[in-house]
């Protein structure tokens, strides 16, 4: 045995370390820092950051053909299983009764999707091909699983920056939205109080609702079926009250395991070679733009509804239509309450917020459908 031949072998970790690896490891540490010390979506950004770190340790083999994160990626991301499993759990955590009590709120969930298309236009203008532009636009769905699902279908090569953008900005909602809210609404508008006198929602209605939504959306937008159906399956498991075993499994082990593995697998795609380029920067900027545009469109539509209703609707709830469930809903309610401690619009904001969740999935499916068709995919 020639021991000297082993020496380069022993230092291979360092000799294969590129400056790009260094930059990406710093990025990974930043993600972990934000997750742990700033609590920015820790359940996702911590695994993503850790996965990114592993992907940039040279020769570690985690992302190689038979490496662990590759196995997980193939099992759960490529098959699109993880975002769908997460949606089962999310569905079991959503309460649609505020929306059912005031069905017209559902309109706000449509307006809050404009950011998707506005960002798509901008991304096209910046030179992205259609499939990538659409994937970037869907950051404006402001809903992690929807963004991941659509990006996996249309442009898997952009999955990592899209997921990072979607989840990072998600937690920055309390920083992104308030300035826009104040800029676009008058104090008078923010002071509008809203009556809350809905008819009671029966358990029967709550049970029929997820089934009806699955059928209607499934027939209207077949491409949205996987997402909407798993969200509604989770909701049905919960509201039915007869399968608590399954509902609890969806809200706990299924979503926890899927989330951990999803994060690790997405992070592991962040190798220096594939992540460190101008596109990533553009995507992060476009993502922020999408969040802002969604909020603006939601607020403007809120103002329109307010005007049409003769000032009975507080336009702030328009900002809750972007999805980002449930933070955007609470933020809108908090803004109104900050202006006037006697003003409570939480129920209306939550109605708009769950509508935004539905609207995001529908818009994602429509985008997928239109773009797939156009590209002959």
């Amino acid at each position: 045995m020639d021991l000297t031949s082993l020496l380069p072998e022993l230092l291979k970790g360092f000799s294969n370390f590129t400056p790009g690896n260094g930059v990406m490891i710093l990025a990974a540490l930043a993600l972990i820092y934000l997750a742990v010390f700033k609590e920015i979506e820790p359940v996702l950004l911590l695994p993503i950051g850790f996965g990114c770190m592993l992907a940039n340790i040279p020769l570690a083999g985690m992302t190689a053909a038979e490496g662990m994160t590759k196995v997980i990626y193939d099992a759960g991301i490529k098959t699109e299983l993880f975002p769908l499993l997460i949606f089962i759990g999310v569905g079991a955590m959503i309460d649609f009764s505020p929306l059912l009590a005031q069905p017209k709120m559902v309109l706000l969930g449509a307006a809050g999707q404009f950011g998707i298309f506005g960002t798509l236009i901008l991304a096209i203008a910046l030179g992205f091909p259609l499939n990538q532009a659409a994937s970037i636009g869907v950051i404006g769905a402001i809903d992690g699983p929807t963004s991941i699902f659509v990006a996996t279908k249309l442009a898997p090569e952009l999955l990592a920056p899209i997921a990072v953008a979607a989840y990072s900005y998600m937690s920055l909602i309390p920083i992104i939205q308030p300035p826009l809210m104040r800029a676009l609404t008058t104090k008078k508008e923010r002071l509008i109080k809203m009556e809350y006198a809905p008819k009671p929602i029966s358990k029967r209605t709550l049970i029929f609702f997820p089934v009806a939504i699955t059928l209607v959306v499934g027939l209207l937008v077949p491409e949205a079926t996987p997402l909407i159906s798993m969200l509604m399956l989770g909701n049905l498991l919960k509201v039915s009250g007869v399968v608590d075993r399954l509902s609890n499994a969806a809200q706990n082990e299924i979503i926890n395991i899927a989330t951990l593995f999803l994060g690790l697998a997405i992070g592991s795609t962040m190798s220096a070679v594939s992540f460190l380029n101008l596109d990533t920067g553009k995507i992060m900027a476009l993502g922020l733009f999408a969040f802002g545009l969604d909020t603006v469109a939601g607020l403007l539509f809120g103002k329109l509804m307010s005007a049409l209703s003769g000032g009975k609707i507080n336009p702030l709830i328009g900002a809750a239509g972007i999805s980002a469930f449930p933070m955007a809903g609470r933020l809108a309610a908090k803004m109104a309450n900050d202006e006037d401690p006697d003003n409570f619009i939480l129920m209306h904001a939550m109605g708009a917020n769950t509508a935004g969740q539905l609207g995001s999935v529908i818009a994602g499916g429509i985008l997928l459908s239109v773009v797939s068709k156009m590209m002959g995919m």
Partner: protein
Amino acid sequence: MTTNLILSLQITALGMGLVFGAILLLWLMMVILTAVTAEKESASDSLEVDSVDPSLTLTPSALTPSPSPRGRGEELERVALLAVAMALAEQGGSSARPLEEPPTALVSAWQLGMRTRQMSEKGTMKRR
């Protein structure tokens, strides 16, 4: 590039149109659904909803101050109580809530049955 931009504008017009169209249909569906299911409900049935998910958000019927002649203060009191209840519910987690047993005719004789307990474990289930 220009053709692409025009394309993207078309996608936007089409996409937002379809989103609004789908959402309008959902609105219609929800109105019909609530109308249809409401008329089949007794008052006691609708009360059940209150406890379906206290931990996620306020439930409608719990708030119903509505066009009541009661003072604003009373309403606020109730809202404050609700806020406290919500916070508590959030602390407690969803498994702590008392899920009432839905009354059913067929299986009621078998509520004690092990299969029921093992395979659906509703109600007093403690585990997670």
